Each structure stands twice: as structure tokens, then as C-alpha cells.
């Protein structure tokens, strides 16, 4: 790669992103794709809330409502929250640990493309005969009964994107264990890196049960097997277990990095070291561990028996302890600090009470005999939205403002940021607080309508108004992002002035190799230490300036992902499918179906063979090139003229 690439055409840009293995560009792709799906799923939620604004409304039909609720949940968790979290992991973790890239850049690209292709495949269902309609949980008896191809899209789409998530998770585990800069011991790692490590480990253990469950359902629905068909000796409860053995850790996969992000934001704007670092690390690991012990609390009403319910109830309550430790540590971080209320800090400050509210309702539901009333009512809807919106979405919005300067060399507008925050935050509480009471007043969840005269009209109306406010807040955020493209580049290190960890020590825009010399880490909060000692460069180096070894770009991950999509279409239109045989769905001739499956998987495997046998040793950036790139960047920062490689 030449150090002086001239202005590229549009096609070259597209090709660059299709083939890139640079963690910073993959982060941007994750962010863009995640935001797209966040917008789609948010729009679905708005449609549902408009339908439920008034009793007996006919705005949306029963069948469509079920498709919307399924796609809203599935998209938000798998295709919006997960990728946006991956965006920050990709953008920040290598910088935080002083690495040039992730351990397996090729796999990083493959993880993204599998996720993206799986997500696109799932969304094609809207145009190809109807989306899945059995809820994001897709309980077996209903999903096997569901006519059409909707559930098939769910199974195959999640299978593909789940593989991508698993690959990315493994990549981060290896990256964090092996790629840390000298001196970056485990107990000096920033909290976001720690939570990424634990969350990636959860992915490693939680996704295989989902993959297994999905595969069983795939052969059940598309090839006539009977794992979950109780009339043929199958068992539907097995699906519930497999799903929740994955599904519960999934919540922690998402919320732990959110905790990590807040653990980065809060110390910066409190100008104070994170309180109780080691107990935060311990709490993270403990939550991750306990997260696997509690899945059956989603199944208290299934009839597992009193002893199972009792054990899972107590285990679930235990999770409140490490979570509480975290909350108190955050509060004690701001205690005695110097709190500056910027937009990211505003999200962090809004997060603490919202998340505590979501946490305590979680403990209420862990109380099994009480959960018999709360389960599958609007109370649970309120609870998990308090956790997911109050905990995860606030983290993502706050971190977007926080890390925008590093990711894009631009800053988001603070005025619009404050406006977004307040509209979104008030809308959020308006939407979900009253839903607790709707649940207690007897309203089941996942209903497309309700009759008047049950005492639910007012709160549903309030809830819908809140949802519209949240929608307006998100629109302002999108406008903010679009405006930032034309704003002045920040061209500096430590945008917020009080950065503590390594990612703030590096000047934006970043060269593609991140650090021209690998930094030497001398303690927790390394950048803070260097600043304290008056080091203008922000870091000390562990090596002299030398050649940098970087990976080559590759189109193979994209082609491999396309191959899985072709195979998925083959399976989807399998003539042996239950619904095809029942006449509710269209099937292709056996030859076509098999050709697509074999051809698609063949393409993927061919790419793997090419990758295995064609040596790709990467390339070396010479010292002269590094100096030229650094000079170009310095020139750009000083004059605003692009001449060099960004």
C-alpha cells in the first residue's frame, strides 16, 4: 500500500470497505449497520405503540403486529445493540490496550460480513412472504405451527449472523489476551476492555446452545425432523431451555460492555480514578459467571417444579449483589470528583437511576411466586426495557458522543446532544414507567389490541406518547450525526481534556497502524500518568521506530458470507419443509434447493481453502513510509489539507 493515496473515487471507497480488515473501518461499518437496524426496529416499535395508543384500534392487523413484535425484539438485540457494541469494541479496545489491530483482522471482517448478510437475509422476509411472527423467543410449538417462510428466515438469518458474532467474540478474547502492549497487565486494563473480554467469553459459551437449537429447528422445519414436535416424540421445552441458556447470557453480553463504557465515561468527567477498580473487575466476572446459572427464571411458569424454581430464584437474586457493587462504585467515583456535565456524562448520570429502577424490578421478578403474576405481563416489558434502554441504549448514545472524536475526528454538537438526551430520556420514562402498572393491572404482553373498559386506556395512551418522544429524540441524534460530517475536524488528542486511558493519548485522525511505536504502559490509566508527569507526547514507547507489519485487505470474507446466504435460500425453499408440504409456503424443486445449498456452502468452503493455501503474509510499512505518513498527518492537522493517508 502506498503511503500517499490520492483522492479515491466512490467505487474505490466501496471496494476499500468491502475488503478492509482495519478494525477502525470495521467499527464504522458496524456502527452504520447497527444504526440502520436500530432505526428499522425503532420504527417497528413506533408502529406497535401507535396501534396500542387506543383500545380496539385497527391501524395494524393482528398478523402484522406479531411480525413487528418479533422483528423489533430480534433486530434490537441481535442486529442493533450487538453490532453497535461491536463498533465500540472494534474502535476502542485495540487502542486501549495499545495494539495495532485485533488478533485476527481477517476474521474481524468475516464476523462483520456474516452478521450483516444474516441481518439482510432476515429482513428480506418482509418482501418474500412475511416476517417471522413467533416472538424473538420463537417458542417451538408456535414457531413450528407458523405458516409461510417467516420462521425459516429467523432461523437461517440468526444462524448466519450468530456465526459472525461468535467469530468476533473469539477474536476479541484472543486480542485482549495476546495483543496487550508491554506493561498492560490484566489488572491495568481499562474497564471497557475488561467487560469486552468477559462479554466475549459469554458469547463463546452462550452462542453454541443457540446455534444448536437453531439447527434442530432448522431441520425440524425445513427437512422434516421432529426434535420439537411433541406429537412425534419431540419436546418443545428443550427449545425453551436452549434458547434461554443462550438468551439470558445474551442480556449480559450486551449490558456488560455498556457497564464498561460508563466506567470509561464517568471517571473522565468526574476527573477522578474509577472507584474500586478491582471490585469492578471482580463484579464483572461474577456477573458473567452467574449469568449462566439463571436462565430458568425466564421459565418460572413453565412448570419445572418448585425446587427448580426456588434454586433459580435465589441464584437470580444473587446477581443483584455484584450489580449493586458496580452502581455504588460509580457513585463513589463521582463522589469527591469534579463533575462536568457533558453529553456523555449526561447519559451516564441518566443511566444510574434508570438502571437501578430496571434492576430492582428484576429482583422482583426473580421472586418466583410473585413472578407467576408478573411473567408475560406488561410488567416484564417495562422491566427489560428499563434495563435495555436505560442501561444499554443510554450507553450507546453516550459513547457515540464520547468516542465520536476518536472514530471520526469530528465532534457531535453538544446542544443537539443535550436536546436529544432530554427528549429521549423523558420519553423513555413516560413510555415504560406506566407499563409496570399496566402489567400489574392484568395486561398481558404481545397483544395486538385490547378491549376498552379494562382500565388500561390511559396508561397505554401515555406510553405511546412517550414512544413518539423517543422517536423524535433519535431523529435529532441522526440529524446531529449528519451535521457532524460538515463540522470542523478536531485534529487533536484527548478531546475531552481529562482522558485517562491510552485511546486518548493518540492524535486524531489516526494512521491505519494506530501507534507508530508500541506504547509502554506504566500503570492503570496510563495516559493520565503520563499527563501527570508532564509528558507532552502522551505516552512512552516500548520500542524504537521500526517497520510495522500489517495485514492485507481481502474480499474473501464478503464472498464467504454471500455463500452462506445462497445456501440459506436453498434451505429456505427446501421442498421437504413442513410448511411447504402443508401448502402454506412455496418450495423449490429438490434439484434447485440442493444446488443452492451445495453451491453456496461450496463457495464458502472454496474461499476457506483459498485462504488456507494461499500464503498471505501481509505487508511491511517501512520507517520512511511511517515518517512520511506522520508528516502528512501533522500537515493535515495544521493546515486542513489532505495529502496523506488517513
Amino acid at each position, binding site marked *: 500500500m502506498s503511503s500517499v493515496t490520492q483522492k479515491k473515487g466512490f467505487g474505490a471507497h466501496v471496494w476499500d470497505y468491502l475488503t478492509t480488515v482495519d478494525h477502525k473501518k470495521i467499527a464504522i461499518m458496524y456502527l452504520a449497520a447497527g444504526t440502520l437496524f436500530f432505526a428499522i426496529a425503532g420504527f417497528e416499535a413506533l408502529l406497535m405503540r401507535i396501534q396500542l395508543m387506543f383500545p380496539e384500534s385497527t391501524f395494524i392487523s393482528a398478523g402484522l403486529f406479531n411480525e413487528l413484535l418479533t422483528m423489533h425484539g430480534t433486530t434490537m438485540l441481535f442486529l442493533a445493540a450487538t453490532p453497535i457494541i461491536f463498533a465500540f469494541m472494534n474502535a476502542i479496545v485495540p487502542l486501549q490496550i495499545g495494539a495495532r489491530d485485533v488478533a485476527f483482522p481477517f476474521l474481524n471482517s468475516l464476523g462483520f460480513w456474516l452478521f450483516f448478510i444474516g441481518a439482510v437475509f432476515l429482513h428480506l422476509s418482509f418482501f418474500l412472504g412475511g416476517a417471522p411472527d413467533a416472538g424473538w423467543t420463537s417458542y417451538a410449538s408456535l414457531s413450528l405451527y407458523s405458516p409461510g417462510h417467516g420462521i425459516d428466515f429467523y432461523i437461517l438469518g440468526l444462524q448466519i449472523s450468530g456465526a459472525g458474532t461468535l467469530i468476533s467474540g473469539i477474536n476479541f478474547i484472543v486480542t485482549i489476551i495476546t495483543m496487550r502492549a508491554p506493561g498492560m497487565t490484566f489488572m491495568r486494563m481499562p474497564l471497557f476492555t475488561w467487560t469486552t473480554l468477559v462479554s466475549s467469553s459469554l458469547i463463546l459459551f452462550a452462542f453454541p446452545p443457540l446455534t444448536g437449537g437453531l439447527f434442530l429447528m432448522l431441520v425440524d422445519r425445513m427437512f422434516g425432523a421432529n426434535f420439537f414436535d411433541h406429537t412425534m416424540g419431540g419436546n418443545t421445552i428443550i427449545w425453551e431451555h436452549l434458547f434461554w441458556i443462550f438468551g439470558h447470557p445474551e442480556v449480559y453480553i450486551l449490558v456488560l460492555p455498556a457497564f464498561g463504557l460508563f466506567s470509561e465515561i464517568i471517571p473522565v468527567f468526574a476527573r477522578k480514578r474509577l472507584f474500586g477498580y478491582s471490585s469492578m473487575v471482580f463484579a464483572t466476572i461474577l456477573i458473567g459467571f452467574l449469568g449462566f446459572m439463571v436462565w430458568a427464571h425466564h421459565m418460572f411458569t413453565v412448570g419445572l417444579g418448585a425446587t427448580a424454581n426456588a434454586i433459580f430464584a435465589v441464584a437470580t437474586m444473587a446477581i443483584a449483589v455484584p450489580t449493586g457493587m458496580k452502581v455504588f462504585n460509580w457513585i463513589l467515583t463521582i463522589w469527591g470528583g469534579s463533575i462536568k456535565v457533558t453529553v456523555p456524562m449526561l447519559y451516564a448520570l441518566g443511566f444510574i437511576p434508570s438502571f437501578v429502577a430496571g434492576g430492582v424490578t428484576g429482583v422482583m421478578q426473580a421472586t418466583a411466586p410473585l413472578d407467576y403474576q408478573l411473567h*408475560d405481563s406488561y410488567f416484564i416489558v417495562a422491566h427489560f426495557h428499563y434495563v435495555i434502554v436505560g442501561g444499554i441504549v443510554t450507553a450507546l448514545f453516550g459513547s457515540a458522543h464520547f468516542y465520536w472524536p476518536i472514530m471520526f475526528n469530528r465532534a457531535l454538537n453538544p446542544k443537539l446532544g443535550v436536546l436529544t438526551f432530554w427528549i429521549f430520556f423523558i420519553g423513555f420514562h413516560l413510555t415504560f414507567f406506566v407499563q409496570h402498572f399496566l402489567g400489574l*393491572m392484568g395486561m398481558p404482553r404481545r397483544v*395486538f389490541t385490547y378491549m376498552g373498559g379494562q382500565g388500561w386506556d390511559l396508561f397505554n395512551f401515555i406510553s405511546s406518547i412517550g414512544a413518539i418522544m423517543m422517536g423524535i429524540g433519535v431523529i435529532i441524534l441522526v440529524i446531529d450525526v449528519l451535521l457532524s460530517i460538515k463540522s470542523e475536524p478536531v485534529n487533536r488528542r484527548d478531546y475531552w481534556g481529562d482522558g485517562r486511558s491510552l485511546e486518548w493519548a493518540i492524535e486524531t485522525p489516526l494512521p491505519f497502524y494506530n501507534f507508530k511505536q508500541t506504547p509502554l504502559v506504566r500503570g492503570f490509566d496510563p495516559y493520565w500518568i503520563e499527563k501527570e508527569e508532564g509528558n507532552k507526547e502522551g505516552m512512552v514507547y516500548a520500542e524504537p521506530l521500526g517497520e510495522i507489519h500489517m495485514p492485507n485487505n481481502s474480499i474473501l470474507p464478503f464472498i464467504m458470507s454471500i455463500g452462506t446466504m445462497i445456501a440459506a435460500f436453498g434451505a429456505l425453499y427446501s421442498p421437504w419443509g413442513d410448511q411447504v408440504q402443508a401448502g402454506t409456503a412455496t418450495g423449490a424443486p429438490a434439484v434447485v434447493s440442493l444446488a443452492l445449498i451445495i453451491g453456496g456452502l461450496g463457495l464458502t468452503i472454496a474461499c476457506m481453502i483459498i485462504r488456507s493455501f494461499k500464503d498471505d503474509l501481509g505487508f511491511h510499512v517501512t520507517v520512511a513510509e511511517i515518517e512520511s505518513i506522520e508528516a502528512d498527518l501533522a500537515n493535515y492537522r495544521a493546515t486542513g489539507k489532505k495529502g496523506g493517508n488517513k
Partner: protein
Amino acid sequence: MMKGLKKWRLFSLLTVMTVFLSACGEEYISTLRPAGAVGKEQLDILILSIWIMTLVVVVVSAIYLVAFFKFRRTKVGENHMPKQVEGSHTLEVIWTVIPIILLIILAVPTLTYTYKFADVAAMDEVDEEGNKTALTVNVTAKLYWWEFEYPNQGIITAQELVVPTGEKVYFNLIASDVKHSFWIPAVGGKMDTNVDGINKFYLQFDKESAGLNDGEGVFYGKCAELCGPSHALMDFKVKALEPEAFNAWVTAMQATEGQTADRESSDIGEATFANSCLGCHAVSAVAGNGLGPNLTTFGDRNRVAGFMDHTVEDTTEWIMDGMEPESKLKPGNLMTGKYNVTPEEAKAISEYLMTLTVEK
């Protein structure tokens, strides 16, 4: 003395909360206004947990707000450099131990009631003659309606569960097609009806349903597990009667043995019903399980199809909807496309159905 006082304080707090919450929701459907022992116990746990959780939220919020207002940069000065504290073992211990104590307080009733609510041993108890002493109802959830069989009484009904007050009523729960969940919010919740096997639990109805909701006289029951397009419409109703009234109802139900609709009847409604509907819908409570809801008590019901008004007009509309290619009123219901009647015949059937009653 002090102990008594503390108890009294706790009691009064509970009362305040109960009064506050009972303003929420309608008596015939709200979990906050329980009409039975199970629901009352669940409400007690709810209130206990709300107090603990309120305490947590208030304490956390208080510390948080003090920290926030005390240590804002505008107050401490732009150039103030806070002390870089690493942590505090004492504090860590405090906020580990206190939550554990609170959780133990909550865990005790959790464990107690988890076992209590699961205790269905009395279902198998028999008197000297070998008859079951407890009232058992077999609930079968179907797309999108409910069948209630009283095995010891030998009767079947649908859509409206009838139970006696003041005793534990035991339920065998199963679904015949996809998973549903059986929930009577005002009486106690809830248990799934799986397709794989029978679930057992009990509820107790301590309040008669007569007079609820301006004379409608029923508790509302819900399906709580997503089961397809018409999940939201899979409602049922519950009549809780005094024991004598319940026994009278059972006797009247048993007396419908052999009752049927006559194809040769001069009543067009009955004759059409016999030709077009009787294959699935029985009009005797002592018949076997039907493909469709048992209609023996149709005239006594409060709703048509679980959610429509109980009138001849709505019944007619419902019958006519069954001949649409896809149901508009209750999408995905399995009555669609099984018969063919004219609008006049549908109206006649509706009028005939209104005469099917054991209560009047």
C-alpha cells in the same frame, strides 16, 4: 413492646401501600385487587418487594444526588484536581453485605411460597367412598379458546370457567395445539399450558363474581403466552359462585346429558345448527371433548368468541365471519371455512344459541 410497635409500623406501611395500589386497575382483572388467597399472598410479596426496592432506589438516589450536586465542577472550581482514590474496603463490605441481607429477607417468602403454590398433593386425596375430595378442572387451551372439563362431575364447558368460592380449585393444564398460558389476574397467576405434558396448580376464589363490572358478574381470564395472531383475543371469563349455587350449576349441567339439536326441528336455527355446527359443537355438557367449544351454556355467557358482545347481532356476525376466506374478527381461528350458511340461517342459529342455558 418495641417489637409490637415495629410490627405495627410495618403493618401500617403495608396498609398504606395496599390502599395506594388498590386504586390501580379494575376489580375483575387487576392483580392489585386480589379476589383469592393465592392472589392475596402474591400481592403481599409484591408489596414487601416494592418496599425493599423503594428503599434501595431512595438510598441510591439520595447518595447519587448529593454526590452530583456537591461535586459539580461549577461548584468545586474549574481547576480543582480531585484526590485520586483507589477504593475502600469498608465501603465495599457495606454495600455487599446490606444487599445480601435485603435479599435474604426477600428470599424467605420466595422459597416458602414457591413450595406452597406448587403443593397439589390434595388433588389425589379421596374420601371413604373413593371419590376425590378436591375440585379439579382440566383446562385445555386451544387456538384461541379454552375448554374446562370437570372430570369428577363428568361435565364440560368452554370459555367460561365456573368455580365455587372458599375452597382450593385444582387445575390440570395442557394445550392441544401450541403453547398458551392460563392467567386469571385478579385471582392469582399463572401457569403455562404446555403441549408436552400436564401442569398442575391451584387457585382459590374468595369472592363471588356476581355484581362485578356493573353486573357483568365475571372475572377476566387471559392467555399470557404468544400463541398466534389472535393471542390478544383469547380471553375467557370466570364465574365464582357460592358453593350451593355451584352445586346447583353442576346438577343443571349434568342434567343436559343426551341433549342435542334436532335436524328435523321446526326451528330453522336448531335445524341448521344440527346440520352445520353439531359436528364440532356439542350442546350437552356430558358429551366428550369437542373439536369446537361446547355450547351448552352459550346463553349464559358474557361474550361471543371470547371478546365480542353477547348479542344476536354479534353472534350472527361471528358466524358469517367463519365463511370469509380468512377470518377478519379473530384471525387464524380454526372455525373458518368449516360450514356454509346464509345470513338468515346465521341469525336463526344465533337466536337458537341464546336459548341454550342452564342458569335461567
